Protein backbone atom coordinates (compact mmCIF):
# COMPACT_ATOMS: atom_id res chain seq x y z
CA UNK A 1 0.00 0.00 0.00
CA UNK A 2 1.31 3.46 -0.86
CA UNK A 3 1.04 5.62 2.23
CA UNK A 4 -0.35 9.13 2.13
CA UNK A 5 2.08 11.92 3.00
CA UNK A 6 1.12 15.11 4.77
CA UNK A 7 2.46 18.47 3.53
CA UNK A 8 4.98 18.31 6.40
CA UNK A 9 6.27 14.84 5.56
CA UNK A 10 9.56 16.01 4.03
CA UNK A 11 10.18 18.48 6.85
CA UNK A 12 9.65 15.71 9.41
CA UNK A 13 11.99 13.33 7.58
CA UNK A 14 14.59 16.09 7.43
CA UNK A 15 14.24 16.52 11.20
CA UNK A 16 15.04 12.80 11.66
CA UNK A 17 11.52 11.58 12.35
CA UNK A 18 11.06 7.85 12.77
CA UNK A 19 7.96 7.06 10.73
CA UNK A 20 5.03 4.75 11.23
CA UNK A 21 1.91 3.86 9.28
CA UNK A 22 -1.19 5.39 10.85
CA UNK A 23 -4.62 5.19 9.21
CA UNK A 24 -3.03 4.97 5.77
CA UNK A 25 -0.62 7.87 6.36
CA UNK A 26 3.14 7.87 6.88
CA UNK A 27 3.38 9.74 10.19
CA UNK A 28 6.22 10.65 12.54
CA UNK A 29 6.09 8.45 15.63
CA UNK A 30 9.05 10.13 17.31
CA UNK A 31 11.88 12.60 16.73
CA UNK A 32 14.28 12.97 19.71
CA UNK A 33 12.47 10.30 21.78
CA UNK A 34 9.05 9.94 23.36
CA UNK A 35 10.17 10.96 26.86
CA UNK A 36 12.04 14.06 25.72
CA UNK A 37 9.19 15.16 23.48
CA UNK A 38 6.65 14.52 26.22
CA UNK A 39 8.67 16.59 28.68
CA UNK A 40 9.16 19.39 26.14
CA UNK A 41 5.38 19.75 25.88
CA UNK A 42 4.91 19.69 29.67
CA UNK A 43 7.74 22.19 30.29
CA UNK A 44 7.72 24.44 27.25
CA UNK A 45 6.27 23.62 23.83
CA UNK A 46 6.04 20.85 21.27
CA UNK A 47 4.86 20.88 17.68
CA UNK A 48 2.84 18.05 16.11
CA UNK A 49 1.92 17.40 12.50
CA UNK A 50 -1.71 16.27 12.69
CA UNK A 51 -2.53 16.92 9.04
CA UNK A 52 -3.76 13.35 8.76
CA UNK A 53 -6.88 14.22 10.75
CA UNK A 54 -10.22 14.52 8.96
CA UNK A 55 -11.29 18.10 8.16
CA UNK A 56 -14.82 18.85 7.00
CA UNK A 57 -16.57 22.16 6.43
CA UNK A 58 -20.35 22.16 6.41
CA UNK A 59 -22.15 25.16 4.95
CA UNK A 60 -25.81 25.87 4.34
CA UNK A 61 -29.03 26.56 6.18
CA UNK A 62 -29.57 24.71 9.46
CA UNK A 63 -26.19 23.00 9.81
CA UNK A 64 -26.31 23.10 13.61
CA UNK A 65 -29.91 21.84 13.65
CA UNK A 66 -28.89 18.92 11.43
CA UNK A 67 -25.86 18.07 13.59
CA UNK A 68 -28.00 18.29 16.74
CA UNK A 69 -29.69 15.08 15.58
CA UNK A 70 -26.36 13.23 15.40
CA UNK A 71 -24.71 14.15 18.71
CA UNK A 72 -25.75 14.03 22.39
CA UNK A 73 -24.38 17.53 23.12
CA UNK A 74 -26.48 20.68 22.90
CA UNK A 75 -24.77 22.50 20.02
CA UNK A 76 -27.23 25.40 20.41
CA UNK A 77 -25.03 26.48 23.32
CA UNK A 78 -22.35 27.50 20.83
CA UNK A 79 -21.58 31.12 20.00
CA UNK A 80 -19.71 31.92 16.78
CA UNK A 81 -16.03 31.39 17.44
CA UNK A 82 -16.65 28.65 20.00
CA UNK A 83 -16.29 24.90 19.77
CA UNK A 84 -17.67 21.76 21.42
CA UNK A 85 -15.99 18.39 21.87
CA UNK A 86 -18.63 15.73 21.20
CA UNK A 87 -19.33 12.30 19.67
CA UNK A 88 -21.32 10.97 16.73
CA UNK A 89 -23.58 8.19 17.99
CA UNK A 90 -25.02 5.13 16.31
CA UNK A 91 -28.59 3.95 17.10
CA UNK A 92 -27.21 1.64 19.83
CA UNK A 93 -25.69 4.62 21.63
CA UNK A 94 -22.19 3.54 20.56
CA UNK A 95 -19.60 6.08 19.46
CA UNK A 96 -19.02 6.36 15.70
CA UNK A 97 -16.29 8.91 16.34
CA UNK A 98 -15.26 11.69 18.69
CA UNK A 99 -14.79 15.10 17.13
CA UNK A 100 -14.73 18.84 17.69
CA UNK A 101 -17.51 20.98 16.22
CA UNK A 102 -16.42 24.57 15.50
CA UNK A 103 -19.14 27.15 14.82
CA UNK A 104 -17.77 29.75 12.43
CA UNK A 105 -20.87 31.82 11.55
CA UNK A 106 -23.70 33.20 13.70
CA UNK A 107 -26.09 30.46 14.80
CA UNK A 108 -29.29 30.65 12.73
CA UNK A 109 -27.63 32.64 9.94
CA UNK A 110 -29.08 31.98 6.52
CA UNK A 111 -25.90 30.17 5.71
CA UNK A 112 -24.25 28.56 8.72
CA UNK A 113 -20.64 27.45 8.55
CA UNK A 114 -19.31 24.72 10.81
CA UNK A 115 -15.91 23.04 10.77
CA UNK A 116 -15.49 19.49 12.04
CA UNK A 117 -12.20 17.88 12.92
CA UNK A 118 -12.45 14.11 13.16
CA UNK A 119 -10.08 11.17 13.56
CA UNK A 120 -7.94 10.09 10.63
CA UNK A 121 -8.94 6.42 10.78
CA UNK A 122 -12.64 7.28 10.81
CA UNK A 123 -12.70 10.08 8.25
CA UNK A 124 -14.36 8.01 5.52
CA UNK A 125 -16.81 6.37 7.91
CA UNK A 126 -17.82 9.77 9.34
CA UNK A 127 -18.20 11.30 5.90
CA UNK A 128 -20.52 8.51 4.79
CA UNK A 129 -22.57 8.83 7.98
CA UNK A 130 -22.82 12.63 7.67
CA UNK A 131 -23.75 12.56 3.97
CA UNK A 132 -26.39 9.92 4.66
CA UNK A 133 -27.97 12.12 7.32
CA UNK A 134 -27.61 15.39 5.41
CA UNK A 135 -29.18 13.95 2.25
CA UNK A 136 -32.09 16.06 1.06
CA UNK A 137 -30.82 19.20 2.81
CA UNK A 138 -29.10 22.15 1.18
CA UNK A 139 -26.05 21.60 3.34
CA UNK A 140 -22.78 21.26 1.51
CA UNK A 141 -19.98 19.11 2.93
CA UNK A 142 -16.45 19.93 1.76
CA UNK A 143 -13.76 17.41 2.68
CA UNK A 144 -10.39 19.15 2.99
CA UNK A 145 -8.71 16.26 4.78
CA UNK A 146 -6.00 15.79 2.16
CA UNK A 147 -5.71 19.41 1.02
CA UNK A 148 -5.07 21.44 4.12
CA UNK A 149 -2.39 21.09 6.75
CA UNK A 150 -3.08 20.96 10.48
CA UNK A 151 -0.38 21.50 13.06
CA UNK A 152 -0.69 21.53 16.82
CA UNK A 153 1.52 23.68 19.06
CA UNK A 154 1.15 22.54 22.66
CA UNK A 155 2.66 23.51 25.98
CA UNK A 156 2.88 26.39 28.45
CA UNK A 157 5.02 28.45 26.03
CA UNK A 158 2.71 27.86 23.03
CA UNK A 159 1.04 31.30 23.12
CA UNK A 160 4.36 33.14 23.48
CA UNK A 161 5.85 31.22 20.54
CA UNK A 162 2.89 31.72 18.21
CA UNK A 163 2.01 35.34 19.06
CA UNK A 164 4.83 37.07 17.13
CA UNK A 165 3.59 35.48 13.90
CA UNK A 166 -0.14 36.09 14.38
CA UNK A 167 -2.23 39.15 13.58
CA UNK A 168 -4.64 38.07 16.29
CA UNK A 169 -4.25 38.82 20.01
CA UNK A 170 -4.03 35.21 21.18
CA UNK A 171 -4.71 36.33 24.75
CA UNK A 172 -8.28 37.03 23.63
CA UNK A 173 -8.73 33.45 22.45
CA UNK A 174 -10.09 31.44 25.36
CA UNK A 175 -9.98 27.64 25.64
CA UNK A 176 -11.96 26.05 22.77
CA UNK A 177 -12.28 29.42 20.99
CA UNK A 178 -11.14 29.76 17.39
CA UNK A 179 -10.73 32.46 14.74
CA UNK A 180 -9.64 33.15 11.20
CA UNK A 181 -6.45 35.15 11.22
CA UNK A 182 -3.19 35.57 9.37
CA UNK A 183 -0.02 33.74 10.34
CA UNK A 184 3.27 34.78 8.75
CA UNK A 185 1.11 37.11 6.65
CA UNK A 186 -0.95 34.26 5.18
CA UNK A 187 -4.55 33.31 5.90
CA UNK A 188 -4.89 30.66 8.59
CA UNK A 189 -7.32 29.40 11.18
CA UNK A 190 -6.37 29.05 14.82
CA UNK A 191 -8.19 27.15 17.58
CA UNK A 192 -7.18 26.99 21.23
CA UNK A 193 -7.61 23.23 21.42
CA UNK A 194 -5.37 20.21 21.79
CA UNK A 195 -4.89 16.65 22.93
CA UNK A 196 -2.13 16.90 25.50
CA UNK A 197 -3.62 18.34 28.69
CA UNK A 198 -1.64 21.57 28.17
CA UNK A 199 -2.55 24.96 26.79
CA UNK A 200 -2.07 25.05 23.05
CA UNK A 201 -3.25 25.84 19.56
CA UNK A 202 -4.27 23.91 16.51
CA UNK A 203 -3.60 25.74 13.26
CA UNK A 204 -5.13 24.96 9.89
CA UNK A 205 -3.53 26.50 6.83
CA UNK A 206 -2.55 25.78 3.26
CA UNK A 207 0.46 23.45 2.92
CA UNK A 208 3.03 26.20 2.16
CA UNK A 209 2.00 28.34 5.14
CA UNK A 210 1.97 25.36 7.47
CA UNK A 211 5.43 24.34 6.30
CA UNK A 212 6.80 27.85 6.86
CA UNK A 213 5.21 27.93 10.29
CA UNK A 214 6.65 24.49 11.12
CA UNK A 215 10.16 25.73 10.34
CA UNK A 216 9.63 29.03 12.15
CA UNK A 217 8.29 27.45 15.32
CA UNK A 218 10.84 24.64 15.52
CA UNK A 219 13.63 27.18 14.93
CA UNK A 220 12.17 29.21 17.82
CA UNK A 221 12.45 26.20 20.12
CA UNK A 222 9.23 24.21 19.78
CA UNK A 223 10.24 20.53 19.88
CA UNK A 224 9.00 18.50 16.92
CA UNK A 225 6.89 15.71 18.41
CA UNK A 226 5.47 12.47 17.05
CA UNK A 227 2.46 10.28 17.63
CA UNK A 228 4.28 8.43 20.43
CA UNK A 229 4.42 11.50 22.68
CA UNK A 230 0.94 12.50 21.55
CA UNK A 231 -0.29 9.19 22.97
CA UNK A 232 1.51 9.43 26.33
CA UNK A 233 0.44 13.07 26.73
CA UNK A 234 -3.23 12.40 26.00
CA UNK A 235 -3.20 9.36 28.26
CA UNK A 236 -1.82 11.33 31.23
CA UNK A 237 -4.61 13.83 30.57
CA UNK A 238 -7.03 10.82 30.43
CA UNK A 239 -8.34 11.82 27.01
CA UNK A 240 -9.94 8.95 25.12
CA UNK A 241 -8.36 7.54 21.97
CA UNK A 242 -10.91 6.46 19.39
CA UNK A 243 -10.63 2.79 18.41
CA UNK A 244 -8.99 2.00 21.74
CA UNK A 245 -10.85 3.55 24.70
CA UNK A 246 -14.04 4.36 22.82
CA UNK A 247 -15.61 2.74 19.76
CA UNK A 248 -18.90 1.68 18.17
CA UNK A 249 -19.72 -0.52 21.18
CA UNK A 250 -19.06 1.96 24.01
CA UNK A 251 -21.49 4.69 25.03
CA UNK A 252 -20.38 8.14 26.20
CA UNK A 253 -21.95 7.43 29.61
CA UNK A 254 -19.77 4.34 30.01
CA UNK A 255 -16.70 6.20 28.76
CA UNK A 256 -16.80 8.96 31.37
CA UNK A 257 -18.10 11.47 28.83
CA UNK A 258 -21.42 12.21 30.55
CA UNK A 259 -20.38 15.88 30.68
CA UNK A 260 -21.01 16.11 26.93
CA UNK A 261 -24.43 14.41 27.12
CA UNK A 262 -27.12 17.10 27.48
CA UNK A 263 -30.35 15.04 27.48
CA UNK A 264 -32.43 17.69 29.25
CA UNK A 265 -31.51 20.47 26.87
CA UNK A 266 -32.33 18.99 23.50
CA UNK A 267 -34.73 16.99 21.35
CA UNK A 268 -34.26 13.63 19.73
CA UNK A 269 -30.91 12.47 18.40
CA UNK A 270 -29.59 9.16 17.15
CA UNK A 271 -28.95 6.93 20.18
CA UNK A 272 -31.00 9.04 22.59
CA UNK A 273 -33.28 6.24 23.84
CA UNK A 274 -30.28 4.07 24.70
CA UNK A 275 -28.60 6.87 26.66
CA UNK A 276 -31.90 7.63 28.46
CA UNK A 277 -32.19 4.00 29.52
CA UNK A 278 -28.53 3.90 30.61
CA UNK A 279 -29.01 7.07 32.60
CA UNK A 280 -32.15 5.72 34.30
CA UNK A 281 -30.79 2.26 35.07
CA UNK A 282 -27.11 3.06 35.35
CA UNK A 283 -24.38 1.61 33.14
CA UNK A 284 -22.93 -1.82 33.86
CA UNK A 285 -19.29 -0.82 33.21
CA UNK A 286 -17.33 2.38 33.41
CA UNK A 287 -14.02 3.64 32.07
CA UNK A 288 -11.67 4.27 35.00
CA UNK A 289 -8.10 5.35 35.55
CA UNK A 290 -5.74 2.74 37.01
CA UNK A 291 -2.37 3.23 38.66
CA UNK A 292 -0.20 0.13 38.78
CA UNK A 293 1.64 -0.67 42.02
CA UNK A 294 4.89 -1.74 40.32
CA UNK A 295 6.64 -1.14 37.02
CA UNK A 296 4.51 -3.39 34.82
CA UNK A 297 2.64 -1.64 32.05
CA UNK A 298 -1.02 -2.64 31.72
CA UNK A 299 -1.60 -2.74 27.98
CA UNK A 300 -4.58 -2.71 25.61
CA UNK A 301 -6.77 -5.83 26.05
CA UNK A 302 -5.13 -7.05 29.28
CA UNK A 303 -7.80 -8.48 31.66
CA UNK A 304 -8.74 -6.60 34.83
CA UNK A 305 -9.27 -8.88 37.82
CA UNK A 306 -10.89 -8.64 41.25
CA UNK A 307 -10.40 -11.48 43.73
CA UNK A 308 -9.37 -13.67 40.82
CA UNK A 309 -12.45 -12.97 38.68
CA UNK A 310 -12.34 -11.06 35.45
CA UNK A 311 -14.17 -7.76 35.92
CA UNK A 312 -12.94 -5.67 33.02
CA UNK A 313 -10.43 -4.90 30.29
CA UNK A 314 -7.59 -2.43 29.87
CA UNK A 315 -8.05 -0.13 26.87
CA UNK A 316 -4.86 1.98 27.00
CA UNK A 317 -1.77 1.90 29.17
CA UNK A 318 1.70 3.35 29.36
CA UNK A 319 4.42 4.40 31.75
CA UNK A 320 3.32 7.98 32.49
CA UNK A 321 6.45 10.00 31.76
CA UNK A 322 5.55 12.95 34.00
CA UNK A 323 4.34 10.81 36.91
CA UNK A 324 6.83 7.98 36.34
CA UNK A 325 4.32 5.24 37.19
CA UNK A 326 2.40 2.92 34.86
CA UNK A 327 -1.12 4.22 34.26
CA UNK A 328 -4.02 2.81 32.29
CA UNK A 329 -7.60 3.34 31.24
CA UNK A 330 -9.86 0.32 31.67
CA UNK A 331 -13.52 -0.60 31.58
CA UNK A 332 -14.52 -2.22 34.85
CA UNK A 333 -17.81 -3.38 36.34
CA UNK A 334 -19.58 -0.35 37.83
CA UNK A 335 -19.59 -1.52 41.49
CA UNK A 336 -15.76 -1.66 41.33
CA UNK A 337 -15.33 1.64 39.49
CA UNK A 338 -14.79 3.72 42.63
CA UNK A 339 -11.67 5.77 43.25
CA UNK A 340 -9.49 3.89 45.74
CA UNK A 341 -10.78 0.43 44.72
CA UNK A 342 -7.97 -2.12 44.58
CA UNK A 343 -7.98 -4.39 41.54
CA UNK A 344 -5.41 -6.36 39.58
CA UNK A 345 -4.35 -6.46 35.96
CA UNK A 346 -3.28 -9.74 34.42
CA UNK A 347 0.15 -9.09 32.95
CA UNK A 348 1.42 -12.07 30.96
CA UNK A 349 -0.39 -14.57 33.17
CA UNK A 350 0.26 -12.90 36.53
CA UNK A 351 -2.10 -10.70 38.56
CA UNK A 352 -0.38 -7.36 39.24
CA UNK A 353 -1.95 -4.96 41.76
CA UNK A 354 -3.65 -1.78 40.54
CA UNK A 355 -5.76 0.95 42.14
CA UNK A 356 -8.59 2.98 40.65
CA UNK A 357 -7.44 6.61 40.68
CA UNK A 358 -8.95 9.97 39.73
CA UNK A 359 -8.84 11.09 36.14
CA UNK A 360 -7.06 12.95 34.71
CA UNK A 361 -3.82 11.43 35.94
CA UNK A 362 -2.10 14.73 35.22
CA UNK A 363 -3.46 18.26 35.30
CA UNK A 364 -1.55 21.27 33.96
CA UNK A 365 -0.46 23.74 36.62
Amino acid at each position, binding site marked *: MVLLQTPLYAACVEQKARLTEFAGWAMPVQFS*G*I*RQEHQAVRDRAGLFDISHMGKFTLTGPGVIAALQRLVPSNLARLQPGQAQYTVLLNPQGGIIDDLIVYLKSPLGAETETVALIVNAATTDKDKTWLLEHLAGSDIDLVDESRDRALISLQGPAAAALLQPHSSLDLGKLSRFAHADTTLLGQPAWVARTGYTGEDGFEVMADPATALALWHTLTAAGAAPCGL*GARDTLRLEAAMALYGQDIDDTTSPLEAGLSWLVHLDEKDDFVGRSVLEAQKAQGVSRRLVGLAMADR*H*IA*RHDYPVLHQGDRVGTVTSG*TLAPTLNIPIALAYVATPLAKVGQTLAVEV*RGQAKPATVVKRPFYRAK
Partner: protein
Amino acid sequence: MAFEYPENLKYLDSHEYVRADEDESVVTVGITAFAIDQLGDIVFLELPDIGDAVEKGEKFGTVESVKAVEELKSPVTGEVLARNEVLIEAPEQIGDDPYGDGWLVKIKASDLEELDDTLTADEYKDQVGG
Protein backbone atom coordinates in the same frame (compact mmCIF):
# COMPACT_ATOMS: atom_id res chain seq x y z
CA MET B 1 21.53 5.00 12.08
CA ALA B 2 24.80 3.17 12.53
CA PHE B 3 25.20 1.08 15.65
CA GLU B 4 28.19 -0.71 17.01
CA TYR B 5 28.35 -4.52 16.90
CA PRO B 6 31.60 -5.76 18.44
CA GLU B 7 33.38 -8.38 16.31
CA ASN B 8 34.16 -10.66 19.27
CA LEU B 9 30.48 -11.28 20.05
CA LYS B 10 28.00 -13.73 18.55
CA TYR B 11 24.49 -12.61 17.64
CA LEU B 12 21.01 -14.11 17.45
CA ASP B 13 18.42 -13.02 14.93
CA SER B 14 16.17 -12.34 17.95
CA HIS B 15 18.65 -9.52 18.83
CA GLU B 16 20.48 -11.06 21.78
CA TYR B 17 24.27 -11.06 21.78
CA VAL B 18 26.51 -13.66 23.42
CA ARG B 19 30.02 -13.29 24.77
CA ALA B 20 31.50 -16.76 25.14
CA ASP B 21 34.35 -17.62 27.43
CA GLU B 22 35.39 -21.00 26.02
CA ASP B 23 37.52 -22.07 28.98
CA GLU B 24 34.82 -21.79 31.55
CA SER B 25 31.84 -22.37 29.23
CA VAL B 26 30.24 -19.31 30.80
CA VAL B 27 28.39 -17.03 28.39
CA THR B 28 27.24 -13.47 28.98
CA VAL B 29 23.98 -12.50 27.27
CA GLY B 30 22.60 -9.07 26.47
CA ILE B 31 20.61 -7.33 23.76
CA THR B 32 22.05 -5.38 20.87
CA ALA B 33 22.22 -1.62 20.44
CA PHE B 34 19.82 -2.01 17.53
CA ALA B 35 17.22 -3.77 19.68
CA ILE B 36 17.54 -1.18 22.44
CA ASP B 37 17.05 1.62 19.93
CA GLN B 38 14.01 -0.07 18.39
CA LEU B 39 12.38 -0.64 21.77
CA GLY B 40 12.75 2.97 22.87
CA ASP B 41 12.52 3.88 26.54
CA ILE B 42 12.95 0.64 28.47
CA VAL B 43 10.97 0.53 31.70
CA PHE B 44 11.00 -3.03 32.95
CA LEU B 45 13.25 -6.03 32.89
CA GLU B 46 12.29 -9.52 34.01
CA LEU B 47 15.23 -11.92 34.40
CA PRO B 48 15.50 -15.50 35.67
CA ASP B 49 16.71 -16.27 39.18
CA ILE B 50 20.23 -17.49 39.83
CA GLY B 51 20.23 -21.29 39.55
CA ASP B 52 17.33 -21.39 37.09
CA ALA B 53 17.66 -23.73 34.14
CA VAL B 54 17.36 -22.14 30.70
CA GLU B 55 17.02 -23.78 27.33
CA LYS B 56 18.37 -22.77 23.93
CA GLY B 57 15.73 -20.88 21.92
CA GLU B 58 13.35 -20.66 24.88
CA LYS B 59 12.21 -17.54 26.72
CA PHE B 60 14.31 -16.65 29.74
CA GLY B 61 12.99 -13.19 30.47
CA THR B 62 11.14 -10.12 29.28
CA VAL B 63 12.15 -6.63 28.32
CA GLU B 64 9.42 -4.03 28.33
CA SER B 65 9.53 -0.55 26.86
CA VAL B 66 6.91 2.16 26.65
CA LYS B 67 6.18 0.86 23.14
CA ALA B 68 6.38 -2.92 23.39
CA VAL B 69 7.04 -6.10 25.35
CA GLU B 70 9.66 -8.47 23.94
CA GLU B 71 10.69 -11.93 25.08
CA LEU B 72 14.35 -12.65 25.68
CA LYS B 73 15.53 -15.93 24.10
CA SER B 74 18.36 -17.95 25.56
CA PRO B 75 21.21 -18.67 23.12
CA VAL B 76 22.24 -21.79 25.07
CA THR B 77 20.97 -24.50 27.38
CA GLY B 78 22.37 -24.24 30.87
CA GLU B 79 22.12 -22.73 34.32
CA VAL B 80 21.89 -19.05 35.30
CA LEU B 81 24.99 -18.06 37.30
CA ALA B 82 24.36 -14.33 37.62
CA ARG B 83 21.94 -11.63 36.62
CA ASN B 84 22.42 -7.89 36.39
CA GLU B 85 20.71 -6.61 39.54
CA VAL B 86 21.72 -3.00 38.83
CA LEU B 87 19.87 -3.11 35.55
CA ILE B 88 16.76 -4.68 37.09
CA GLU B 89 16.60 -1.65 39.40
CA ALA B 90 17.37 0.86 36.64
CA PRO B 91 16.46 -0.72 33.28
CA GLU B 92 16.64 2.65 31.49
CA GLN B 93 20.45 2.44 31.82
CA ILE B 94 20.67 -0.52 29.44
CA GLY B 95 21.35 1.77 26.50
CA ASP B 96 24.34 3.47 28.13
CA ASP B 97 26.65 0.51 27.54
CA PRO B 98 24.79 -2.39 25.87
CA TYR B 99 27.85 -4.64 25.51
CA GLY B 100 29.40 -3.82 28.89
CA ASP B 101 27.39 -2.73 31.94
CA GLY B 102 24.21 -3.48 29.99
CA TRP B 103 24.66 -7.27 30.20
CA LEU B 104 21.61 -9.24 31.36
CA VAL B 105 22.61 -12.73 32.54
CA LYS B 106 25.61 -15.07 32.74
CA ILE B 107 24.84 -18.67 31.90
CA LYS B 108 26.89 -21.82 32.51
CA ALA B 109 26.41 -23.45 29.11
CA SER B 110 26.09 -27.23 28.94
CA ASP B 111 27.22 -27.35 25.31
CA LEU B 112 29.03 -24.45 23.64
CA GLU B 113 28.48 -26.06 20.24
CA GLU B 114 24.96 -24.71 20.53
CA LEU B 115 26.47 -21.37 19.54
CA ASP B 116 27.58 -22.68 16.14
CA ASP B 117 24.47 -21.37 14.40
CA THR B 118 24.76 -17.81 15.74
CA LEU B 119 25.50 -14.83 13.50
CA THR B 120 28.77 -12.94 13.25
CA ALA B 121 28.76 -9.16 13.76
CA ASP B 122 28.77 -8.64 9.97
CA GLU B 123 25.95 -11.12 9.39
CA TYR B 124 23.85 -9.52 12.12
CA LYS B 125 24.59 -6.06 10.76
CA ASP B 126 23.38 -7.15 7.31
CA GLN B 127 20.24 -8.55 8.84
CA VAL B 128 19.25 -5.36 10.65
CA GLY B 129 20.21 -3.18 7.72
CA GLY B 130 23.40 -1.62 9.00
